[in-house]
């Protein structure tokens, strides 16, 4: 039994998700190798090699893998996954894009977004926006699994795995990279932040959404948003927390002006401590909040900022 993990990286930096996926792979048992594909990946490979519990870091460095487009990435993985029993990646936008393509090319199903491992072939995952937890067993020769990173603690960085370059170059005539418009959010990343301050429709406008900034800066928090706030244009899409956005589990989640639709709760209800600030005392968010404060958020937020 052995696992290949697709490593996620951006702008020459290793994504935090990989250390969590390795933790899931170690729970399976067996050897763990990482695959780093891209153009100019030496620094990412070196950082990946420091993660604990890794046997080897395989690199595929070529212009065709730049931007990690799904078509060439899937073809590459198909070419090097034969020796493995498991293929894992984070259930991030990149993992969600690439992994099912690999699974289909290999003629096997995928289990998405696992939150626990019962046995090397048996996994738990949320369904129906987290209203139910399914346990599935996978009897395919290659088990393709995407991992909810917030459900597995990151491994440490004291390793020194071997780095080995693969000489595999694939064709890509299907897709071309045009451009990125990456949001410039200051502060920590949503997926790895210890504290998240998240805003909803109750904020009323994109100007008001900046009310969150003061508290977020004081707490070193990442900013999040409900779908309603993103749809209304108060916040950018990459901030959306929920069933179809990001799933987070910080130590502290402060929901501001968020009513608490089940689709939003699906993305944050595993946070350690939840605070809800809302004018409507009937808002469902209070039902799951450890500390609810009913009040006008335009008074509460400045007051909170001044007391932190």
């Amino acid at each position, binding site marked *: 039994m052995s696992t290949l993990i697709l490593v996620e990286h951006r702008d020459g930096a290793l994504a935090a998700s990989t250390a969590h996926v390795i933790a899931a792979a170690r729970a399976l048992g067996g050897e763990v190798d990482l695959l780093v594909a891209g153009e100019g990946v030496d620094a990412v490979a070196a950082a990946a090699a420091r993660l604990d519990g890794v046997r080897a870091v395989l690199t595929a460095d070529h212009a065709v893998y730049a931007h990690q487009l799904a078509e060439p990435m899937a073809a590459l993985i198909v070419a090097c996954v034969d020796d493995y029993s498991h293929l894992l990646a984070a259930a991030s936008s990149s993992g*969600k894009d690439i992994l*099912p393509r*690999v699974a289909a090319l290999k003629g096997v199903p995928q289990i998405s977004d696992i939150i626990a491992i019962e046995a090397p072939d048996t996994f738990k995952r949320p369904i129906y926006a987290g209203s139910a937890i399914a346990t599935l067993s996978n009897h395919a020769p290659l088990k393709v699994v995407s991992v909810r990173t917030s459900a597995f603690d990151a491994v440490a960085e004291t390793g020194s795995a071997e780095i080995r370059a693969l000489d595999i170059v694939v064709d890509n005539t299907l*897709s071309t990279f045009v451009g990125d418009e*990456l949001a410039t959010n200051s502060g920590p990343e949503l997926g790895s932040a210890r504290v998240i301050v998240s805003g909803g429709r109750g904020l009323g406008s994109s100007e008001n959404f900046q009310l969150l900034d003061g508290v977020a800066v004081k707490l070193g928090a990442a900013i999040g948003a409900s779908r309603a706030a993103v749809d209304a244009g108060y916040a950018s*899409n990459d901030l959306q927390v929920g069933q179809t956005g990001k799933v987070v589990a910080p130590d502290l989640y402060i929901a501001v002006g968020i009513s608490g639709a089940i689709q939003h709760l699906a993305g944050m209800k595993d946070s350690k401590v939840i605070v809800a600030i809302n004018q409507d005392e009937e808002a469902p968010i*209070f039902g799951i909040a450890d500390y609810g404060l009913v009040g006008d958020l335009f008074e509460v937020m400045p007051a909170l900022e001044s007391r932190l």
Partner: protein
Amino acid sequence: MKVLVGVKRVIDYNVKVRVRPDQSDVDLTNTKMAMNPFCEIAVEEALRLKERGVASEIVAVSIGPKAAQEQLRTALALGADRAIHIESEERLDSLEVAQVLARIVAEEQPGLVILGKQAIDSDNNQTGQMLAALTGMGQGTFASRLEVTDEEVQVTREVDGGLRTLALRLPAVITTDLRLNEPRHARLPDIMKAKKKPIDSRGIDTVGLAANDYLRLERVETPAARQGGSKVASVDELVDKLKHEAKVL
């Protein structure tokens, strides 16, 4: 250009799902069902492509129980030209659905396939990517904007860091994200007219699917409920509790 859109019958997004007492699955008896919201966005995008003169014909396809024809009728009322229903009372995994869709793609030869990025029941987010793989097409997943020309589609995708734009050679598979469009509602006269539009319904046994037995649903449980509901009276009390009781500040 012919556009193929996928339509899945799922639990209505407002309905809270129940788990069966024997933990064999969720209980959907007498539950309100609807078109998967991401499929509504797929249908809407196809309609807009037709209104712009890019699409010439819209074919809606659903794989599922007989009752899935209700959702196909909705797609027809919204403006799809015809529908294909592959009837299967058994639950299929995403790979099997993609394999059936690949058959339909081979028959219909669409210039573009638009599917929802995920269904709100299984939350898998797999079928579009798998269909693209099986048909050798490029994939534009989690789309928030499409621009179709004769040779290619430019698709802007919602990704973790923000937005990414790709150009895909046609034919291609697109999966919809929330911000692609706001779906319209069907008008009553169109609902009446849709009753006359054709649905080509066939059994799953007619498509030559080699079903796999790789995935088995072992059990379904209700997650542990979160204990919440306590309130604080002031910002001062909140900060005090966060510092001294929860110890997160």
